[in-house]
């Protein structure tokens, strides 16, 4: 499964969510499908996308938060998984695109390529619902189920180590950050 196709398959569902992605390839791919004001791309700070998602989920329990994480990024903040599990935000779906590599910086393999299992790690950390999916339809169904579940899910989607040719887009980091915050504020006013 290509990650771009996976993103495309769930893109319509993202409209009513608040989305946080990691840097690099995922951010560029989601923007290539179409940026929306409810998407925030954490363009550095590896590992913290899930923590940012947790902060939003705890601060605004009425919002449905989706985090698009990566294997390399998550491996940098495994402790954060235990915090996520501990507070168990029911309004957060944590998707990990596991391409077994640090694709955005040359594609060097991560430890998931030699057997580390992120869904099992998440489960052992205490995340109540975890799964590993490999096919596109399987991903879409698991994502929809997670959204409906009203509980914390970590969904590991095994994807091919392919991505866009470049990662810099014309959306500036601060423009994205302020637009996103303003959008969340408006959501609070029921607009």
């Amino acid at each position: 499964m290509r990650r771009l196709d996976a993103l495309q398959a769930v893109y319509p569902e993202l409209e009513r969510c608040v989305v946080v992605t990691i840097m690099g390839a995922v951010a560029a791919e989601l923007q290539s499908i179409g940026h929306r004001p409810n998407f925030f791309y954490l363009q550095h700070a590896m590992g913290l996308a899930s923590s940012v998602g947790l902060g939003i989920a705890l601060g605004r329990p009425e919002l449905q938060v989706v985090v698009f994480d990566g294997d390399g990024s998550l491996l940098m903040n495994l402790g954060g998984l235990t915090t996520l599990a501990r507070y168990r935000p029911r309004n957060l779906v944590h998707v990990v695109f596991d391409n077994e590599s640090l694709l955005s910086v040359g594609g060097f393999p991560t430890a998931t390529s030699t057997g580390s299992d992120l869904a099992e790690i998440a489960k052992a950390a205490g995340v109540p619902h975890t799964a590993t999916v490999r096919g596109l339809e399987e991903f879409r169904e698991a994502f929809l189920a997670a959204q409906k579940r009203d509980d914390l899910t970590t969904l590991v989607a095994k994807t091919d180590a392919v991505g866009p040719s470049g990662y810099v887009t014309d959306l500036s980091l601060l423009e994205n950050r302020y637009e996103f915050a303003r959008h969340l504020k408006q959501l609070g006013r029921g607009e």
Partner: protein
Amino acid sequence: MLSASFTPYSLAVPVSVESSTAIYRALKETGVRIVSALPETWLVHLIRMAEDDDEMTLVRLAKEEEGVGISTGAHLAGVKSAMLMQNHGFLAAINGIVSCGQLYRIPLLMLISQRGSFGEQDPWQCEGGGVTEHVLEALRIPFDRLEAAEHVGKRIAKAQTLAHSASRPVALLLCRDLMWDD
């Protein structure tokens, strides 16, 4: 299970309840509703207060850097937050502070216990004390020291104001003379 003779560590050490109460009150007065923390001795009362307060969400971290992400998310979601950590925790959080807090101009209020200064008795705390202020300066993080009771309310309020007007991380150092009753 705890044995009957268990004495909570916090009762066995002279961390100032009065100063901790004043700090906690000041945080609440500036509108803080989420506190993320990683315990250390000087912070025990502050953490308990957050824990016992229905109006506060306490997030217990596995590592301090997570707190930067949580505060970032909280800010983007329109909620004021603060981080409680010791200076070694601040050192452990630096990339998050730079690559998330500073890069994205997040008003991040960090309360950092300044271990390893004059009077420090724990040998292992002594390196951090000597580098913390230099690192804060190198990172261009505005900071001030809380050393006496009269500093607490005003400096916390001012730190919070600057964090928001500058839209940047700021730090307050919780110093020994304030935190330790000896």
